């Protein structure tokens, strides 16, 4: 997507060029901004804080599990630790991470628009997110919540005496931030594409976010009303899930997982979008099977809503419904498999450069494949009866969420960091961090597959001796992974000050976002770009000369 000789970049970029970062200063310029780029930075700061908060809970959990006897924390504390780890990581990091940071920053740039369709709504979404986060922080500070991130009644409604209401309201409020962001993206992608940018010329990053936004808008309200019903039952005794009145706790599980399974696709689809961009750029080749990948994103979004029943296999679901959900869960695995094959095919006969984003992309390919394949184990209703609620499932979803979504997030953050900050990050340090993350991750979570099939249940504060060796390996891996995640924070901060100024297109990538200077001006494009090329048009070699 390049125009021939692009008048967009002033020839010699004077040092004091004004861009969205130095356009104006002061706290209010940030807190009242409606510029999608600044809002993306606000989200980046907020979710990074939540990531390290959730990560600290993870470290505590892994420390506890080094010894079979629960001797580091009391069981109440441990129950709160894994609950808050789940809530903070799922609702306050994984779901917003790529859409709110990279999506907010890049979608207007990629489609040649000046901003999202509803800039004020975008800022409101961030405030709603922070307001929800405050509720959850209030819950954490005031004694935490110990119901598990799944809030299953009747424990969450009538037996837990912890901050279930505050944590629930936190999630209820933050859910609307996710809904409004999804709404904003859908309208922007429909209504504000640059002239000439047809649907099949859109970058696959935009396709992935379109599919994700569908899930956000149609799925999130279901968990909002479910958490509301739990809150009503706790406060006003409106006993909807109360078995003493004849209520059915399994109904809650249906409602909860109706959203929470599509939510795992909210987490992984944007990462897939990042991988499509990174793999094509660092193979310098057209994506293999553009339409198939775009269609797979949509198929995952829609099929994702049909499979929630595989979370209820041992929970007294009717036999035939269980078998039907198992079948549908297999059908939803196919589009993911197709995508992995297409990315691999893209690398065939490419010109591959192993910069950090590509390292993360290749890591994603490996780990997401293992995550997806172990999904076949837990979708098999016969095997799932054995592995349900054991560490096998914990390993499976961490391979997808950490191995997939976070690797994709870090890959995307490195890939677009020059565009976001106008600075180049230190390449060597970044590659070291990527390798540490990959090694630490596998050492942490692969032993958990073995533990899971041995039968070690989830959420256990103390376990029987024979599981100790594998748990010690997992905890060792977790410490390496922790280091791997801390490194980027340092060198990204370092690069803000000392990084070399970034050219407009450091990787020689296609895409409208690379045709603006780094960092972009507030209104993104001094002149409305017109798109004449197909997506990822590397072969023509006409992309903008690197300034």
């Amino acid at each position, binding site marked *: 997507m390049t125009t021939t000789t692009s008048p967009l970049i002033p020839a010699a970029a004077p040092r004091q060029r004004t861009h969205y970062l130095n356009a104006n200063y002061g706290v209010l310029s940030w807190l009242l901004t409606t510029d999608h780029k600044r809002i993306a930075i606000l989200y980046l700061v907020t979710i990074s804080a939540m990531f390290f908060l959730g990560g600290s809970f993870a470290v505590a959990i892994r420390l506890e599990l080094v010894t079979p006897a629960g001797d580091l924390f009391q*069981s109440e504390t441990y129950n709160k630790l894994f609950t808050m780890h789940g809530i903070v990581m799922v609702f306050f990091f994984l779901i917003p991470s790529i859409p709110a940071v990279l999506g907010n920053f890049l979608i207007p740039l990629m489609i040649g628009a000046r901003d999202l369709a509803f800039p004020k709504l975008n800022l409101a979404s961030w405030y709603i997110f922070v307001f929800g986060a405050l509720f959850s922080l209030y819950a954490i500070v005031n004694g935490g919540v110990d119901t598990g991130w799944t809030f299953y009644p009747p424990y969450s409604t009538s*037996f837990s005496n912890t901050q279930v209401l505050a944590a629930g309201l936190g999630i209820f409020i933050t859910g609307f931030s996710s809904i409004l962001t999804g709404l904003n993206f859908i309208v922007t992608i429909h209504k504000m594409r640059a002239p000439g940018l047809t649907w099949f010329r859109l970058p696959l990053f935009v396709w992935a976010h379109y599919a994700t936004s569908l899930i956000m808008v149609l799925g999130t309200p279901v968990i909002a009303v479910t958490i509301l019903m739990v809150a009503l039952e706790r406060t006003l005794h409106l006993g909807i899930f109360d*078995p003493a009145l004849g209520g059915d*706790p399994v109904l809650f599980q249906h409602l909860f997982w109706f959203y929470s399974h599509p939510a795992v696709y909210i987490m992984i689809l944007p990462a897939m979008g990042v991988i499509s961009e990174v793999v094509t750029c660092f193979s310098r080749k057209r994506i293999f099977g553009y339409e198939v990948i775009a269609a797979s994103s949509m198929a995952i979004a829609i099929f994702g809503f049909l499979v929630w029943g595989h979370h209820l296999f041992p929970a*007294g679901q009717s036999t035939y419904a269980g078998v039907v959900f198992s079948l549908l869960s297999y059908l939803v695995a196919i589009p993911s498999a*197709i995508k992995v094959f297409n990315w*691999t095919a893209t690398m065939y006969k490419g010109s591959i450069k192993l910069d950090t984003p590509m390292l993360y992309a290749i890591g994603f390919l*490996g780990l997401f494949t293992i995550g997806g394949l172990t999904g076949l184990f837990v979708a098999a209703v016969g095997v799932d009866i054995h592995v349900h609620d054991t560490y096998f499932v914990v390993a499976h979803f961490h391979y997808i969420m950490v191995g997939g979504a976070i690797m994709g997030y870090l890959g995307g953050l490195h890939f677009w960091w020059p565009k976001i900050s106008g600075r180049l990050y230190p390449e060597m340090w970044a590659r070291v961090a990527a390798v540490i993350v990959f090694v630490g991750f596998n050492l942490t979570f692969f032993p958990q597959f073995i533990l899971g099939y041995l*039968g070690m249940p989830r959420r256990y504060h103390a376990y029987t001796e024979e599981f100790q060796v594998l748990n010690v390996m997992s905890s060792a891996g977790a410490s390496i992974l922790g280091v791997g995640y801390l490194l980027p924070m340092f060198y990204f901060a370092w690069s803000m000050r000392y990084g070399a100024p970034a050219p407009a297109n450091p990787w020689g990538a296609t895409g409208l976002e690379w045709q603006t200077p780094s960092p972009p001006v507030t209104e993104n494009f001094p002149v409305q770009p017109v798109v004449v090329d197909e997506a990822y048009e*590397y072969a023509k070699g006409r992309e903008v000369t690197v300034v």
Partner: protein
Amino acid sequence: MSGFPLFPEQASTIAGRVDALYFFLIAISAFFGLLIATLVVVFAVRYRRRSPDERPKAILGSVALELTWTLIPLGIVMVIFLWSAEIFFSMVRVPPGTMDVYVVGKRWMWKAQHMTGQREINELHVPVGVPVKITLASEDVIHSFFIPAFRVKRDAIPGRYQTMWFEATKPGRYHLFCAEYCGTKHSEMIGSIVAMEPAAFQAWLQGGTGEVSMAAAGERKFQELGCMTCHRGDTEGRGPNLQGLFGRPVTLAGGETVPADEGYIRESIVNPAAKIVAGYQPIMPAYQGLVTEEGLMHLVAYVQSLGGNAGAQGGAGALGPGGASAPDANAAGASPATPQARPSAQPVPDQPRQ
């Protein structure tokens, strides 16, 4: 840390079949995982960027390739699906002639009771080679009865019965875990299943603490709660006759027929108005909260012992009003003052027989 196991024991009939599917899945995953990994590494090395302005030829895609890596995975997953569904059906369908055990999950302990009365806490003795049917109930939150060595698991959900079955194949002591998070001592709600040779099991059974059998305990509870005032041996009572009820379809007031299994009997005690037998008035008070789960199990065992083909579905003609003449006229007319929604704690007030 003596040597640590990498694979669980196979101690039940289903374990071998689940493990077979598990190994097949591992083989598939290993194949595709290595395929992708090697391809990615080979491509990354072989097609590494040699000069900065290298321009590889664009390859847009190939329908043939797309079809192959859609249909082949689809075929494989369908095989896996059918295989796993077949295992699941055999896991769920309870074979006839099982040894029944009632298990109640109560926050942080498992209370098991054999039909002959033996009670066990966090432990369950079962004979090898005999299918054992477990009826699971929970008194508070959701628990999950999980025996890794047998590859079976079932949630115990408050407010309803869940059944599971297994058949031990190897004597030994195996772990019992609670797999559904249930609060503070979730990780201490563990125990063990002791599989014994049938002879040894019988000896253990005889050596029981002389507990009265569940059916007898149920009968005592039946008397204590005054159930016999309405549920009489003949067809005169205000409530249906329970002789030979168990396992036979019952015709309800709305014309539907329901099999009279444990769940139906339990619900008819706890929330009788949910299903009114045809020809009877909804006058039975609800005993929700007045009878513990164990008491309910005793009552169910008692009703089961009153004859009727225990556990088999269908069978003799629908038990309906045909047999019983309409309950004596005046009772139907002046329906006795039904007690308040929450019958007081003391046993059912004596119904004045007008």
